């Protein structure tokens, strides 16, 4: 990623940096591959090949070798070992790590500047979405007509799992990654995140985990849906070990990122930036981070137990050894439902922010907005068993979980109240972010209402495990979260690049994606209502027409995403220049230059009111 608006730095000879001067993405890849190879060779030769679990143990150790080698190669381990031997980094070292005067090279390095990390997250999100999108196209092409054999059935089944997990990872970081890093610290009036090195660690750990996850496609055998619940995992090959390890490592990344975000907001705000004056986006970032801290320990544990079952012959999820698959289902969904809101809340908060700026009005009922997000986060930890209504686990708990689940519609309704209330009587600037925001509103109401059906057990007994569920959560993730994430991208893109995301291309992408979503997932609802189960590689002729329509719609979405991706890449260097505050907004990220300087502020600002008083003269130094 390059930008012509980069500070053109004179070539100066630097001190500081040490080993990090030689470390970048390339050395990380070399380190990872070397680490994996060394670990594989040792494990392969030392472990007894006659034992059932050995191939899994070798796979796990190889994966660990990859992670450690990658960390070593990128420079993540430099500081911990420097600390261990008492050689702390100097200010010059810190500036080197922050990427001072390294131009575009710093985007390939273990860079501690939160803005560089933000850009790295943008790229990472696009790579993950792209990979997941290609798999989605393969899946839909396989399903275009009954009995199609576009991909081998076993391969198809593997695509289902990896598509699911790649997209989940991509959306977990889609808003919180780029904008939680790039803009949230500036919004608070901070010079960087609280722990810049941990920030780089979370990004590069995600890269390492994603690499491991993509490898599962090559080693195969991950044919069990993204939830990978026992006992079918017992039939999976070594891809399952890579998968479990990738998730375990990913939870480290999100935990570290969550702690960092919370500490930044609570301890790094500038003078006068009270909690009531925080831009609403910041609230979304910390609520989602806190919810992630609650949810992801379950995810690490469930994958750790999975690995132990596979490598040490423990019996956590094995019925014949005294375990039960329902333990895994419980732990997984204890994580799984909060995780949906870890994904959703940052997108919604970004839209609150965008709606206020674009309607030239304050966020309507700021406290209701916070209450809605906190309420949703709080309820989400009490609803996990609705994913298990039809598993046969504890049927008597169905009623209570149905109550908690349906209560979710109340905080969700508050989101609509805040968005519509903010837009009501506004002077709405119909630019690209606004367009995608309206798309979000239209899709999110469908996502919400179809969720209410599924929360009701008599209906769920019919629709659980069908394409109706698939269509419902795609309305949540594609129709709502992705639209919100793209609105956020269009909104903050000028701050990152100094250029607008092209309005015309962006609108073409919008209409392709918006119509595509309706075509794809409305027809998918019909498939589900008519009785087509999920995760089918083939289907009977009664589902022929709806599946054909779904596939056409999916191609439309992909076309839209390709146009958008092209626009993002093209406009980075060739878009229309935007100036530093194109939306005439008042929050701090718009009041610093574009791109913001290394430590954001030469002099920390003092805040006297919230950022939503439009039409007042801005006081700028």
């Amino acid at each position: 990623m390059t930008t012509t608006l980069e500070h053109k730095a004179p070539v100066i000879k630097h001190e500081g940096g040490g080993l990090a001067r030689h470390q970048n993405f390339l050395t990380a890849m070399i380190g990872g591959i070397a680490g994996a190879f060394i670990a594989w060779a040792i494990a392969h030769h030392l472990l007894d090949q006659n034992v059932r679990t050995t191939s899994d143990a070798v796979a796990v150790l190889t994966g660990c070798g990859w992670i450690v080698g990658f960390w070593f190669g990128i420079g993540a381990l430099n500081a911990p070992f420097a600390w261990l031997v008492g050689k702390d980094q100097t200010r010059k070292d810190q500036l080197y790590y922050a990427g001072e005067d390294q131009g575009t090279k710093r985007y390939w390095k273990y860079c501690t500047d939160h803005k560089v990390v933000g850009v790295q997250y943008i790229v990472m999100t696009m790579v993950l979405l792209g990979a997941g999108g290609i798999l989605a196209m393969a899946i839909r092409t396989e399903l275009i007509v009954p009995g199609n054999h576009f991909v081998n059935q076993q391969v198809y089944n593997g695509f289902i799992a990896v598509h699911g997990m790649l997209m989940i990872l991509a959306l977990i970081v889609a808003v919180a990654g780029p904008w939680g890093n790039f803009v949230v610290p500036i919004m608070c009036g901070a010079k960087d995140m609280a722990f810049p090195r941990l920030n780089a660690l979370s990004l590069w750990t995600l890269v390492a985990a994603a690499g491991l996850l993509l490898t599962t496609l090559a080693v195969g055998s991950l044919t069990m849906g993204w939830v990978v619940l026992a006992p079918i995992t017992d039939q999976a090959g070594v891809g399952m070990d890579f998968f479990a390890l990738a998730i375990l490592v990913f939870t480290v990344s999100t935990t570290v990122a969550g702690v960092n975000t919370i500490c930044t907001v609570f301890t790094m705000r500038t003078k006068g930036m009270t909690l009531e004056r925080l831009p609403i986006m910041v609230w979304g970032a910390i609520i989602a981070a806190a919810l992630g801290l609650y949810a992801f320990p379950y995810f690490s544990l469930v994958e750790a137990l999975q690995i132990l079952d596979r490598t040490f012959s423990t019996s956590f999820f094995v019925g014949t050894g005294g375990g039960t698959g329902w333990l895994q289902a419980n732990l997984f969904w204890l994580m799984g439902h909060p995780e949906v809101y870890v994904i959703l809340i940052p997108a919604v908060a970004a839209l609150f922010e965008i709606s206020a700026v674009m309607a030239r009005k304050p966020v309507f009922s700021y406290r209701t907005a916070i209450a809605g997000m906190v309420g949703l986060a709080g309820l989400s930890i009490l609803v996990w068993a609705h994913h298990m209504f039809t598993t046969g686990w504890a049927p008597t708990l169905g009623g209570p979980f149905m109550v908690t689940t349906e209560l979710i519609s109340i905080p969700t309704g508050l989101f609509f109240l805040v968005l519509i209330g903010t837009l009501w009587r506004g002077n709405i600037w119909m630019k690209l972010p606004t367009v995608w925001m309206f798309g979000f509103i239209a899709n999110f109401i469908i996502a919400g209402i179809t969720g209410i059906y599924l929360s009701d057990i008599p209906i769920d007994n019919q629709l659980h495990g069908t394409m109706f569920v698939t269509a419902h959560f795609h309305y949540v993730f594609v129709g709502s979260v992705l639209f919100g994430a793209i609105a956020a991208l269009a909104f903050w893109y000028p701050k990152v690049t100094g250029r607008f995301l092209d309005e015309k291309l962006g609108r073409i992408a919008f209409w392709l994606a918006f119509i595509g979503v309706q075509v794809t997932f409305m027809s998918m609802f019909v498939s589900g209502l008519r009785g087509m189960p999920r995760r089918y590689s083939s289907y009977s002729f009664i589902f022929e027409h709806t599946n054909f329509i779904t596939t056409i719609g999916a191609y439309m979405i992909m076309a839209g995403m390709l146009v958008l991706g092209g626009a993002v890449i093209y406009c980075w260097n060739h878009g229309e220049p935007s100036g530093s505050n194109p939306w005439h907004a008042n929050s701090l990220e718009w009041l610093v230059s574009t791109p913001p300087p290394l430590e954001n502020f030469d002099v920390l600002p003092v805040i006297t009111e919230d950022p939503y008083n439009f039409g007042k003269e801005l006081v700028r130094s």
Partner: protein
Amino acid sequence: MSIDTHSHHDAHADGGHHEPPEVVDGRQRMSIWLFIGGDALTLAALVFTYLYLRGVNTSGHWMSMLGYPGPQLPGGHSWAFYDANVFNGSNPAAPTTIVTGPLSSGLNWLGTVVTAISAGLIWSAERALRVAKNKSAFTMLAALGTIVAFVAILISFHQLSLIPQIYSIHNDSAVMAFTAYGSSMMIIIGAAIVHLMLLVFLGLGLTLRSARGAINVENWYQSRLVRMFWVWVAISAVATSALTTTINTIH
């Protein structure tokens, strides 16, 4: 947002990298509390796992399993990868239900007490530095705490080796397996080992840094952060021992 940029040229103005140590310390303490919170949730999930498996006692297999007893190895050690075929030769003809007892409470508490002692040593090391301003006492106590934590690791590994294995039937061959109880103990002790290894790293760091002068009586903040986490590990060790030594058998 109106901003007054002219009245704020105080000592803090240089931001993130030149803040006074108390400010940085407050921030780091918050992060440690958050990490402890996340770790506590993991512990809660572990306790849930333990109690859930014991509660459901699937097919009566919490502490028993259909299979053959594991081989007796010199010194009672049996924790390793084995070739199941080696053992196959001497099986009884039909598998029987093997009942395994709980692990020794004494050994469990020994590991916990040793962990607690190491936490106590780090606690007094930190006090020696912060209150008594005695740097050499700090170095010595930190080194001692680290060594004691290392001993706790050894005890934990010994405990792991004592978890009884059973050769169960899988695809017509006898393979090593652990009961639900054995499995739960494996993850609980394994998690303790991971934490203790982190403590040894941190303790070693404190010792080396103090010896090299990177920690001194004015600059005691890091030692308090390490102590916070160390004490938490000791508390979680006490909690898991209390759980696994009192609630283990099925009545």
